[in-house]
């Protein structure tokens, strides 16, 4: 069937609601890539088998990632008209126990994470409680979802459906208000009115550069030409960032609907999603979603009975970081090597196949439908100053609660790390938080009260970037981190312009020398000089931002550089040529664990006698250090 009007959309919505909230118990497993890598597929198989064995009449379903990847595999049990219970760190064994409890009609209390009493239908602006009027009494092992620090400060707009719907069901997307905004835009609004809403919302590009989205759309709309394109940049290349993967795997229609609205506003008839090949599940879910949307007439000809037509295709990336740059991305879709070209002309004037083109990031597109449905004022009520709305971060590294979080802009780094993130693993001291990927910088502890927004992070020498936020502790060497990022950008530099191709190589060589104890006086100044040069003269954003990790680590952690260069010491005890492992005689009881773990037979000693490390043989892999239960192995 092809949906031609709002009434027909509402018929599908009714069907979707029955699927999402069936009359019987529904067991749901978070099956995004993160869940699967934690073992969700085994949990799902165990649930399937046990449910069949017991002949239990329940619905078993899959969903995306609710963001709390740290606690995966996550399983939810939805009791109709009562409550939804979330279980964490599930295994095949606990899955069986859970099904057994369901069979016996009792609440499974082990592995509890939280209870969810109500869900926000964000696009419609309504709250749907599970129980009416009173939620059931439950043991304290089930705190309320809103009371968990990880969730309490979040405002989920991009992630509104992730972990709540089956991403492979368009009906479930429609159940929570999906495609109503597209209907409103196409039927009730002029393209100009849509652009005005996006402009007024204050939405800025969530890919990292932060260009005002509405303005970009207006340029494209006003560019002469019949044929125009919209593109979704899903080439999420920043290491340590997986926001786009989370959205595409968990709620692909959110992106498709946003793109369709954008295409209507700009007068585009065709669009592409350029998704990196490293995300096979995201590509799979996108393909399913596109064909479902075509099936219901939400993509294709005469959408909602109007004259607006829109076709959407997927293009897979082939593993090139530079393709996240818009002109390189366009070259890649055209089937060429992904090399950037100078701008102007900007893609809004001359983009894909020379036609006016707008490229937005996955997160930017996923904000569009709620903005159109709820209005610009509603959206702009979140955030602060010049940074309106919310954005998604991947909060990872040395924090206790890692995962995907969506927060209003303006929240402080400290709140992110200590409230949502639950502090540093093992209560160690934080050293830095890295934002903006290879284009960003490392922010030290003294600036943790900085609000997270475009301008504040830029003032510190970093950038907000696409949303990677990697927390580092005292055991991370900042020179080594700078070297890591330069190794990355050197490797990913396309080679077209000399400053980036040669400059990143030179920076890398100097950093390598410093971490190997071959640093010389004056190296720091040389690094800064070279960095400034690369920034000023590179052709595209990759080169222009590549020195940022070096500059910020020098700015905030100069003493670590000096320790490497002058004292040949790595204060964090990371850089191998500058450290030695040894065994404390008085602490070693000769348990032999280190000797057995050593891959190169560098540890010698007889049982119950103190052992020794033969330095000439030691490859400094740290296996002995990790293995010792008596703190007898030390690193200097």
């Amino acid at each position, binding site marked *: 069937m092809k949906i031609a009007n709002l009434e027909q959309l509402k018929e599908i919505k009714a069907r979707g609601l029955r699927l999402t909230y069936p009359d019987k118990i529904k067991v749901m497993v978070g099956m995004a*890539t*993160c869940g*699967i890598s934690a073992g969700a597929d085994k949990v799902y198989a165990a649930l399937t088998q046990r449910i069949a064995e017991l002949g239990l009449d329940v619905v078993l379903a899959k969903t995306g990632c609710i963001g709390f*990847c740290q606690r995966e595999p996550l399983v939810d049990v939805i009791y109709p008209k009562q409550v939804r219970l979330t279980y964490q760190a599930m295994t095949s064994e606990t899955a069986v126990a859970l099904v057994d409890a369901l069979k016996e009609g009792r609440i499974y209390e082990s592995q509890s994470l939280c209870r969810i009493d109500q869900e926000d239908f964000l696009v419609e602006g309504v709250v749907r409680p599970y129980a009416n009027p009173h939620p059931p009494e439950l043991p304290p092992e089930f705190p309320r979802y809103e009371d968990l620090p990880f969730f309490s400060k979040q405002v989920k707009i991009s992630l509104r459906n992730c972990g709540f719907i089956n991403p492979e069901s368009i009906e479930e997307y429609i159940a929570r208000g999906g495609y109503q905004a597209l209907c409103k835009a196409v039927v009730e609004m002029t393209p100009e009115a849509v652009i005005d809403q996006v402009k007024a919302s204050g939405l800025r590009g969530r890919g990292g550069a932060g260009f005002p989205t509405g303005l970009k759309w207006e340029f494209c709309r006003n560019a002469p030409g019949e044929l125009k394109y919209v593109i979704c940049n899903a080439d999420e290349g920043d290491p340590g960032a997986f926001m786009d993967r989370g959205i595409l795997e968990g709620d692909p229609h959110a992106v498709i609907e946003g793109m369709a609205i954008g295409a209507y506003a700009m007068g585009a008839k065709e669009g592409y999603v350029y998704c990196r090949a490293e995300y096979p599940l995201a590509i799979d879910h996108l393909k399913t979603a596109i064909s479902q949307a075509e099936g219901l007439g939400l993509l294709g000809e005469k959408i909602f009975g109007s004259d607006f037509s829109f076709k959407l295709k997927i293009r897979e990336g082939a593993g090139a970081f530079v393709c996240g740059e818009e002109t390189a991305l366009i070259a890649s879709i055209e089937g060429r090597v*992904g090399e950037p070209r100078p701008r102007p002309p900007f893609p809004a004037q001359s983009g894909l196949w020379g036609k006016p083109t707008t490229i937005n990031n996955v997160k930017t597109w996923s904000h569009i439908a709620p903005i159109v449905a709820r209005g610009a004022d509603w959206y702009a009520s979140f955030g602060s100053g010049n940074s309106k709305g919310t954005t998604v971060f991947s909060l990872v590294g040395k924090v206790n609660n890692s995962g995907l979080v969506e927060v209003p802009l303006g929240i402080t780094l400290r709140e992110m790390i200590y409230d949502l993130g639950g502090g540093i693993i093992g209560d160690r001291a934080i050293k830095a938080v890295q934002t903006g990927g290879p284009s960003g910088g490392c922010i030290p502890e003294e600036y943790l009260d900085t609000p997270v927004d475009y301008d504040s992070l830029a003032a510190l020498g970093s950038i907000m970037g696409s949303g990677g936020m990697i927390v580092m502790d005292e055991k991370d060497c900042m020179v080594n981190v700078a070297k890591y990022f330069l190794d990355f950008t050197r490797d990913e530099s396309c080679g077209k312009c000399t400053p980036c191709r040669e400059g990143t190589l030179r920076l890398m060589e100097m950093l390598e020398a410093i971490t190997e104890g071959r640093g010389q006086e004056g190296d720091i100044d040389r690094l800064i000089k070279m960095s400034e040069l690369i920034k000023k003269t590179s052709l595209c954003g990759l080169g222009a931002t590549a020195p940022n990790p070096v500059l910020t680590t020098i700015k905030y952690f100069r003493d670590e550089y000096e320790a490497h260069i002058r004292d040949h010491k790595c204060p964090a005890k990371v850089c191998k040529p500058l450290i030695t492992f040894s065994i404390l005689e008085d602490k070693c009881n000769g348990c032999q664990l280190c000797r057995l773990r050593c*891959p190169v037979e560098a540890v010698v000693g007889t049982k119950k006698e103190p052992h020794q490390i033969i330095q000439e043989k030691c490859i400094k892999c740290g296996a002995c250090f990790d293995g010792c239960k008596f703190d007898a192995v030390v690193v200097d």
Partner: protein
Amino acid sequence: MPEEAARARTAYAEVTDADVVSGIINTYRDEPGNLLPVMLDINRHFNWLPRPALEHISDELKIPLTEILRVASFYNAFSLTPRGKNIINVCLGTGCFVKGSPRLLERLERKLGIKHGETTEDMEFTLEVVRCIGCCALAPAIRVGEATYGRVNPDQVSKIIDSYIETASL
């Protein structure tokens, strides 16, 4: 001319390979900018890009072989040398990096006796690094074929690879 070019092509290892490649090319024949999708599918099918397939594309899509080789050497996903049955990707994204993935890589290099980017002599394993597979919250992560493993320590990584060796010898 085209016929002559076809005759001059390097022979495929298996006769049926030509049909597979033709099938892939035909899937995308009318798509503008079809070179990448064609090469990705061929790379997936063979696990690498055999020379005859590249010449085949060049003939069919009328794209100079030099351009195809340029594309093949530019993107990380493509391999111009045969790769092993199991492709191991160690994630070196920032999240995995700070959680110790370089040590997973070292362990694997020692275990398999190869450096990353290389393939074992028995063609069972190719060891590669990947710049983030998006499993940062479960770092460090590795991927073997299509299976992703999260929160892996150096001892586990060894066992994971053993499970593939055992499967192979069955």
